[in-house]
């Protein structure tokens, strides 16, 4: 982890991308230059009573125009405050933080559930830029809460629990089918823990490498407070730091 900076980022645009979900593009040139897929930023908020910055995955970064894209669900006071920012406002963020995905796969599947889709947009771009193929598999409860559903309509596979878009059911359905159909060299996943566990099982059976991104509450985001342990990430009796050892881990290392 190096090249971390604190930047006063300017809001370039804000858009609704699902029920209660936003896409925000920020001008943050230094972070845009060094961010890798799977890394995240900490967003300082001026929300009432709030104190700690909030972790959000980098969902896109363009060194050319210095932009960083965030995609997030508005769930509480921090994300609520952030969602209220408008074009031209500034937001203090620091990053890029953490250990991201290992790119370089030639033909891989990205499995995202809910807000876990956010970092995968960036990962897909990076893999494709490096000449690989990346098939995005997106899961959600229903169409309304699937972020960027119009973008996902083409070239991706969607599964919703109520069948309102794509296949009916969980993402593991199409995942199993795909893996059975042909050989992939890697799977990446980000989403709720039960989804990750299910994906891990499927991949283990197929002998496929899997990287997963975990979430937990964070204090600092940089390894200073030891606050970001999570039930899923333990190693030889010691707790891993999601912020620094992760948030991306090799599946066999985590998910108990």
């Amino acid at each position: 982890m190096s090249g971390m900076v604190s930047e006063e980022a300017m809001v370039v645009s804000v858009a609704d991308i699902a029920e209660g979900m936003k896409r925000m593009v920020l001008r943050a040139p230094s972070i845009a230059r060094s961010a890798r897929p799977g890394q995240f930023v900490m967003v300082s908020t001026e929300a009432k009573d709030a104190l700690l910055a909030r972790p959000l995955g980098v969902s896109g970064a363009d060194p050319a125009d210095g932009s960083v894209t965030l995609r997030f669900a508005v769930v509480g006071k921090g994300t609520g405050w952030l969602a209220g920012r408008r074009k031209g406002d500034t937001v203090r963020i620091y990053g890029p933080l953490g250990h991201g995905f290992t790119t370089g796969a030639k033909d891989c599947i990205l499995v995202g559930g809910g807000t876990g889709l956010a970092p995968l947009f960036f990962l897909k771009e990076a893999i494709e830029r490096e000449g690989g193929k990346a098939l995005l598999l997106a899961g959600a409860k229903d169409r309304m809460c699937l972020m960027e559903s119009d973008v996902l309509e083409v070239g991706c596979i969607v599964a919703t629990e109520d069948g309102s878009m794509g296949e009916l059911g969980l993402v593991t359905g199409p995942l199993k089918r795909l893996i059975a159909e042909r050989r992939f060299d890697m799977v990446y996943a980000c989403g709720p823990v039960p989804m990750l566990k299910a994906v891990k099982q499927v991949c283990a059976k197929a002998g496929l490498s899997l990287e997963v991104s975990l979430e937990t509450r964070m204090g600092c985001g940089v390894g200073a407070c030891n606050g970001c342990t999570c039930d899923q990430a333990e190693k030889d009796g010691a707790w891993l730091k999601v912020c620094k050892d992760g948030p991306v881990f090799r599946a066999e290392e985590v998910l108990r």
Partner: protein
Amino acid sequence: MNDALKTELFGLEMKNPVMSASGTFGFADCYRDFFDPAMMGAIVVKALTPLPRAGNPPPRTCETPSGMLNAIGLENPGLREYMARIAPALKGIGTKLIINVAGSTIEDYVEVAEAVEQDGGADALEINISCPNVKEGGLAFGSSAKGAAKVTEAVRRAVGMPIIMKLTPNVTDIAEVAKACEDEGADAISMINTLLGMSIDVKARKPYLANETGGLSGPAVRPVAVRMVWQTAQKVSIPIIGMGGISSAEDALEFMMAGASAVAVGTAQLADPMAIPRIIEGLSRYVKDEGLASIREIVGAACPGRKVAG
């Protein structure tokens, strides 16, 4: 560098009165991208115990209004790993180094203190008798003047290097505890550690933290911390290192005017990686704007009864 910020604590010359608080700055390895730790008056590292500790299960932290609860549980690599890998990395860090020492028994404190003194790399010990997040030791010693005196006495007997006793606010009379430490030969007092607190997850109908209770820190506790420094400064003649919710130069000045000779920044640094440099710069501006030859001129300004000399 601003000479007016120079501070001296029990013979320790510091370039300014601002330190990291223990447990919020790792082993000085986490914020190097943001600023050079050498710019601080001193670095206080994470608590060290004789053996490695895994700490408490998650969740370990929880945000509260203008504050946070933590129940890390003294996770640390233990003395051996510290000596092998961390102490060497801290050599030549360019500023004073203070090691925070924790333990379950008095022997634990003595063991770590002796090893650190022998190693020779550190400038002072901060004896943490105030951690609320472990079952044994910690708070148990710090909760009474008698317990605090016992630890101070044992460590004092064991080492010649400066010892700072770190006190808990979870007591009826913190000044009395401080006095007991002074009487047993402590070189300084640092205060406050966290206030014992709890947050309940209403949906789950149980405490948020796996450890149930945790330590409250951040701006929320500042008025309590300032009051305790102010009370203690009137009772002891050794310097006080003030902390608890400092997140701006003005906050630091509150503690110094209340009687603290130096300050430490904890939670604010977690929330903003530029907090410490921002605070040092703010103090620098303050002495200039006020035309002070030394920041020491305002130490105790709001505490006429302060006992310490200078």
